[in-house]
């Protein structure tokens, strides 16, 4: 039975389309984009007032399985993703054991298949055990389904190793996702270095800890011609460096996370560990620069860096708390605020949350609604008002700084491979 | 020795506030009557103690301060020797600190003599439930062991809640439990004691 999404506004930047259209799905594929009111022999889903966009893709999440299933599993993470309007996620390799071998990659893929929720694309490790000493068997990882390589959670401190990784990955046709952090500058720090770290007496992490590594990685990308993607950019300096590199013609991509364009270091006041992540919340000026970067094309994608933890890791002193917050439930509505505030257009939002992630990761499908494309679709109700209630999260993690926030906009219908979730 | 104009409310509890002009108010002592009462108390102190050798006055802050000073001046005048006077804050000895809405303010204590072996005359403006004096007794005894302690008050308004009595009283005023007794110590001879009838 075909499926007709009727009465919505189809936003498909790949086709240059942002118009009222009906979308017809047949089985696992998109069949046609129809003029409004067109008849079709299909089950009708009324999506009036909603946006119909290519399935959203969150290219940076932590699913904690194998090894830390008490924090999250592939199944609970994939379910939370779908509930948040996300049709596909890319999950990082810092599991226990690390995803530096085919066995773990296969395991994750199998768990995702069994869950039958959002698609899960594993990201394999750059270095064995994430130790930053020797390369992981990247070839095998890619053969078994890893779409990219990353030591995320940790930076690759050795420039020599990062160079090798970029070169080696080039031949494999996958990007290296870099967590840019110079640990010698950020050591023991728990919040951004600035007025607030001074007032609160917390060990600081200077913006330069991120920028020094961004600069290094850009130079290595230039040297090697490798495909570099910079993760969770948070500072004005990082945005500036990427902008300049792109202006020089360098092929590099970058992402940021909703908390970096929503919160600032002043929010750490109160020492709530739900405001602690790495990189840390930055200054107002940094937040403004990140928003500007999203608007002007410097930053290509928004990803959540969904990092579930249990109360054991989070209900402790700020400096002892683990880094990270969950984000799958809130990535869409927080990103929509940028549209409401006039910072980006709805089409740009779709680029940041779907088109570009699909392109950067070289996914087999998705990122557009062309006939014949796989039917991964997200229907967004941009006017839906709701309040963040962590008790209702499908994720096992409750570590969010947005508890109680009144947000506008959420996903109404999520379709993966033609199947409504 | 200028007195700051101040108003002390001796009501049933410190938080009660008079409800306005409809309550009956009358002046029960004016400046002259207060002066005469103090003079008589001074004479009684001298008579009872056969002079003021080894006698010290301690005014209970804040209401007893002014009257202690006056009594000391009168005694010195009468006996031609200085009468030592000190001022004691008894807030930390009260039994009702934590029954108040906010923590009572603690003032300083200024006593530059020893009480050991002395006749201590505690001085306060109004004797009511007796709890203030009870606290003052504990406070004085923590300073040393007096030979004896006597109590001089300007007004005794009754309603004792503890077995406490004054040795020297300026005036006995029968009051209702809910009445307020206001002792005004003025700048220039306009002291007065006002009784406000409660409900």
């Amino acid at each position, binding site marked *: 039975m075909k499926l007709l999404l009727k009465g919505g506004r189809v936003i498909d930047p790949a086709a240059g389309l942002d118009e009222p259209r009906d979308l017809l799905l047949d089985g696992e594929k998109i069949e046609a984009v129809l003029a409004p009111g067109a008849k079709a022999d299909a089950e009708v889903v009324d999506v009036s007032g909603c946006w119909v966009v290519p399935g959203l893709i969150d290219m940076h999440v932590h699913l904690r399985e194998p090894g830390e299933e008490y924090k999250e599993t592939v199944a609970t993470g994939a379910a939370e993703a779908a509930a948040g309007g996300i049709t596909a996620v890319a999950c990082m390799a810092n599991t226990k054991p690390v995803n530096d071998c085919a066995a773990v990659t296969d395991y994750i893929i199998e768990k995702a298949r069994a869950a039958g929720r959002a698609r899960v694309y594993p990201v394999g490790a750059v270095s064995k055990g994430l130790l930053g000493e020797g390369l992981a068997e990247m070839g095998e990882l890619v053969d078994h389904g890893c779409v990219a390589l990353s030591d995320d959670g940790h930076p690759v401190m050795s420039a020599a190793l990062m160079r090798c990784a970029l070169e080696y990955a080039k031949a494999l046709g996958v990007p290296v996702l870099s967590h840019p952090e110079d640990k010698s500058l950020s050591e023991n720090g728990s919040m951004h270095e600035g007025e607030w770290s001074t007032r609160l007496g917390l060990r600081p992490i200077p913006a330069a800890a991120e920028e020094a590594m961004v600069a290094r990685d850009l130079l290595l990308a230039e040297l090697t011609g490798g495909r570099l993607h910079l993760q969770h950019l948070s500072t004005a300096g990082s945005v500036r460096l990427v902008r300049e590199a792109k202006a020089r013609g360098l092929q590099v991509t970058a992402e940021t996370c909703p908390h970096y364009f929503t919160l600032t270091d002043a929010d750490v006041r109160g020492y709530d560990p739900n405001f602690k992540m790495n990189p840390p919340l930055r200054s107002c000026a940094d937040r403004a620069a990140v928003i500007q970067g999203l608007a002007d094309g410097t930053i290509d994608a928004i990803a959540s860096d969904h990092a579930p933890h249990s109360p054991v890791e989070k209900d402790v002193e700020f400096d002892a708390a683990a880094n990270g917050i969950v984000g799958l439930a809130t990535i869409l509505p927080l990103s929509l605020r940028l549209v409401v505030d006039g910072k980006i257009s709805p089409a740009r939002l779709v680029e940041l949350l779907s088109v570009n992630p699909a392109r950067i990761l070289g996914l087999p499908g998705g990122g557009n609604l062309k006939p014949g494309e796989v039917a991964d679709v997200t229907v967004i109700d941009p006017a839906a008002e709701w309040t963040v209630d962590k008790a209702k999260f499908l994720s096992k993690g409750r570590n969010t700084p947005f508890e109680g926030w009144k947000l506008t906009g959420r996903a109404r219908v999520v379709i993966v491979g033609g199947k409504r979730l | 020795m200028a007195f700051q104009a101040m108003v002390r409310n001796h009501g049933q509890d410190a938080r009660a506030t008079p409800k306005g002009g409809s309550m009956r108010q009358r002046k029960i002592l004016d400046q002259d009557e207060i002066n005469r009462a103090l003079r008589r108390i001074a004479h009684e102190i001298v008579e009872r103690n056969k002079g003021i050798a080894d006698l010290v006055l301690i005014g209970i802050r804040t209401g007893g301060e002014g009257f202690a000073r006056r009594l000391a001046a009168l005694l010195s005048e009468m006996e031609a020797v200085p009468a030592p006077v000190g001022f004691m804050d008894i807030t930390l*000895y009260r039994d009702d600190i934590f029954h108040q809405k906010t923590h009572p*303010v603690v003032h300083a204590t200024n006593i530059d003599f020893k009480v050991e072996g002395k006749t201590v005359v505690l001085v306060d403006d109004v004797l009511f439930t007796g709890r203030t004096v009870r606290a003052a007794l504990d406070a004085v005894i923590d300073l040393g062991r007096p030979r004896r302690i006597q109590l001089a008050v300007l007004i005794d308004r009754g309603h004792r809640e503890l077995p406490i009595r004054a040795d020297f009283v300026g005036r006995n005023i029968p009051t209702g439990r809910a009445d307020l007794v206001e002792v005004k110590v003025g700048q220039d001879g306009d002291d007065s004691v006002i009784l406000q009838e409660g409900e």
Partner: protein
Amino acid sequence: MESALKIKSLLDLEGLDREGITHILDTAVSMKQINERVIKKVPTLKGRTQINLFFEPSTRTRTSFEIAGKRLSADVINFSPSSSSLTKGETTLDTVDNLQAMSPDIIVVRHKSAGAAEMITRHLAARGAPVPVINAGDGAHAHPTQALLDLFSVRDRLGRVEGLNVTIVGDIANSRVARSNIIGFTTMGANVTVCGPPPLIPAQVEKMGVRVSHHLDEAVADADVVMMLRIQLERGAGGRFPSLREYAIRYGLNARRAERLKPGALIMHPGPINRGVEISPEVADGERSIILYQVEVGVAVRMALLYLLCGGGDEITA
């Protein structure tokens, strides 16, 4: 029962205005008088339970709070988890919950993590048991009672705080004493200068209303109060300056420097002193130094706080 200070717990000095600080200092005057009597005790907190919860070791501050509580007739219990359950893996909040079962009336907390006192206060309130908490030092964030006793000492010795030039020297970045004193002295109208080598001065500290200097002689030239801080080797000063020797030469208050201070200038130190490093022995023991006096008034200031923060409990009739 509401404290005249309008705060229920003392976590830092941010929540106090000039009036509030003055009220605490004034109350401490009376407490100091009690400490000078033969019977150094009043019955004010009789039957109240004070728990000194020191996750981080400290003999002098803990003893000061213990004496303060006992002089107010409180029952004081010292609890130092670092020596027992924490090493067995019990979390801070679990420790607090266990203590809560003893129905304390007031808790004094010292912890190595910034924000720990606030975390504990929030936790107790969430548990429906809002016990007043006094922060005796949380990481590098705040040490409000130290700042209050420093303010008391200065006010007592110099008659005022407003308009005085106060210079704080040392590892400002890692010092809770510095942070609380900066807030306390600026609130009371003093001009505060912080001095130390650049790596020991935290980012944008000028935003807290202070002047920054990296040269000690210049920084203390016009000072009415010079406060020397202990170089915190245990808080990671290591690596941020070359050696204690060089620090002592460039930033130590030696006899020659002390001599050039303004007449009547006070020399202070929160203790414990690193003799010969930030302050030379003869200056620490010299006539301008009020270091021991600070310790003495510390008890009075802490008594004032215990009195002002202890609440009414069930007997509130207001």
